[in-house]
């Protein structure tokens, strides 16, 4: 058994991989070993997996309904058996609301990433590969968006679009893409003059094909790291918008909005506002730890910094 494990390890770490698959698996194995050597990063991964687990199985895990509370008997109960984190002013179980809220948090984070990362990737790679005035114009636009304070710009957008979780996601996505464009451009500049690109050019590939098939894949790993690191910021911005009443609207159990509604009872029933804040803190800490770990694992140049 141990002999088989040894050979599998050797197979993964070999200097002369026989197939593309073997080379990829070997690379992944090395990155995974480096990642798991970082205890904090593993904690981050566990937190995020826990969040995903909660979001998927929310109906099974939540002990009560997140929307319907017992107004007559269960208003603002303190934490205890039956309601482990207490109840809010409408008699709703806070723990259940937090569990369902994980779906909203995950939704915001994923949608922002899905919208913003491709925009940044496209702008950055095109600017980097085309160069000249295309580069100048695209990067000027990127810089203009970078010059804006994110939260304030998102606020203004939501003010114009109207409050709601969909508009909050759009606003955050619009303000998040510029750093991705910068990273993608920097990566593109390092590879655009390399031999393999010249080889593809000689074979007659169109610029679009080169950008899409041969440059973009190389930008992905540094982009993933940056997106993961940004997710904590996205969660905080979304929670901030929710807190100001501009994000998810009641009765949605969005964590920021829950803090806002618990604010009125902060003096006597502090747990109503405290619990969702702890949830936000844990999840964004998880994303930060995971992002740090990914950066160290995928990009050894920046480790230790």
């Amino acid at each position, binding site marked *: 058994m141990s002999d088989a494990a040894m050979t599998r390890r050797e197979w993964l770490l070999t200097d002369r991989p026989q197939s593309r698959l073997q080379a990829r698996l070997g690379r992944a194995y090395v990155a995974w070993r480096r990642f798991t050597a970082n205890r904090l990063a593993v904690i981050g991964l566990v937190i995020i997996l826990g969040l995903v687990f909660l979001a998927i199985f929310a109906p099974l895990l939540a002990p009560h309904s997140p929307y319907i509370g017992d107004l007559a008997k269960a208003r603002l109960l303190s934490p205890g058996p039956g309601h482990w984190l207490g109840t809010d002013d409408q008699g709703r179980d806070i723990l259940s609301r937090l569990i369902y809220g994980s779906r909203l948090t995950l939704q915001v984070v994923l949608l922002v990433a899905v919208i913003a990362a491709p925009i940044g990737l496209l702008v950055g790679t095109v600017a980097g590969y085309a160069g000249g005035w295309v580069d100048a114009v695209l990067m*000027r*636009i990127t*810089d*203009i*968006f970078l*010059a*804006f*304070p*994110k*939260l*304030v*710009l998102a*606020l*203004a*957008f939501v*003010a*114009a*679009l109207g409050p709601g979780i969909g508009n909050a996601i759009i606003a955050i996505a619009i303000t998040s893409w510029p750093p991705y464009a910068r990273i993608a451009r920097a990566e593109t500049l390092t590879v655009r003059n390399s031999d393999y690109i010249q080889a593809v050019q000689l074979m007659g590939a169109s610029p679009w094909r080169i950008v899409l098939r041969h440059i973009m894949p190389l930008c992905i790993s540094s982009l993933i790291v940056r997106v993961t690191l940004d997710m*904590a910021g996205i969660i*905080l911005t979304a*929670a*901030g918008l929710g*807190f*100001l*009443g*501009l994000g998810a609207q009641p009765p949605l159990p969005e964590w*920021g909005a829950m*803090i806002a509604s618990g*604010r009125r009872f*902060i*003096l006597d029933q*502090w747990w109503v*506002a*405290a619990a*969702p*804040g702890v949830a*936000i*803190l844990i999840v*964004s*800490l998880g*994303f*930060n*730890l995971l992002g*740090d770990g990914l950066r160290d694992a995928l990009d050894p140049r920046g480790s*230790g*910094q």
Partner: protein
Amino acid sequence: MSAVARLKPARRANRRAYGRLKSVAGFLVVVATTYLGLLAVTFFIGRVVPIDPVLAIVGDRAPAHVVERVRLEMGLDLPYYQQFWLYMKGVLSGDFGTSVLTTNPVMADIRRVFPATMELATVGTIIGALIGIPLGVLAAVKRGSFTDQVVRIIGLVGYSVPIFWLGLLALLVFYARLGWVSGPGRIDVVFEYTFTPVTGFFLLDAILNRDWAAFRDIVSHIILPASLLGYFSLAYISRMTRSFMLNELGQEYIVAARAKGLSETRIIWGHALRNAAVPLVTVIALSYAGLLEGSVLTETVFAWPGLGLYITNSLQNADMNAVLGGTIVIGSVFIAINLLSDVLYRMLDPRTRSR
């Protein structure tokens, strides 16, 4: 031959002056286009995104003739490029329109509330730098140790905590339960008639007036929100300080200083930190700009009468002129600080000067 040699320095000086002129011109172009972009984005948000910008300003209960008048006043019957031209002219001459909520010109409102935000952000940055830099230095010197890990965790939590939530809890603990600090607002009502603001920076005003009772009260009001913002910037400052210090401590001049037998304290604080200080100036400037943004949420929690509270109040009342005016001002300060840090970096680091 000798004539050429004599000519050379003059030509080189010329070329250098030309290069400098070119970089200054390029700099101005960057400033101008960035600002133009800022105006374009706010114009887009205010005029193009809303389904009916007039409705966004006068509300849905205004009579038809008012709506029509405002539509003409705003020039909404004109094509977009003319509208943008008018908008740009207005903003550049300091006219952001009138606030529906306060009925004052938005510019006058902003001038009134902005010093409060500046004061908060300034005190916050000072706190963040005073604690963040030593923490970062410590973490770099004891790299990999328990101290390093603790500093890292402190920083990570600072990056991850929702600042408005921390503010609420801090108010609960330090104001409501312990009574160590004063509650929301900038100054107690008691001082409303005896205290006359001069500069708008209350701490400075109290010192100028030699009103020590008011000074104590202002300090006890500002300490909590400023500490929170300070923690926010501490996370960033300590992380960057650590990274800069690690970079410096690996340099050869440190080995040389050790070989000369200098004390470790001298090497760390006198040599390494002094060289790390150049990029640190940029970091502190950027974190100051970040605090202007962080103040939006903090001011809401602490009822701090600054620009952040002004923007959120206006948002809640669908007062679009005020929101956009506030956005433009914060955006402009952001741009200004970014450029300023760039200039400072060039001035402080002799290596970038010749280029």
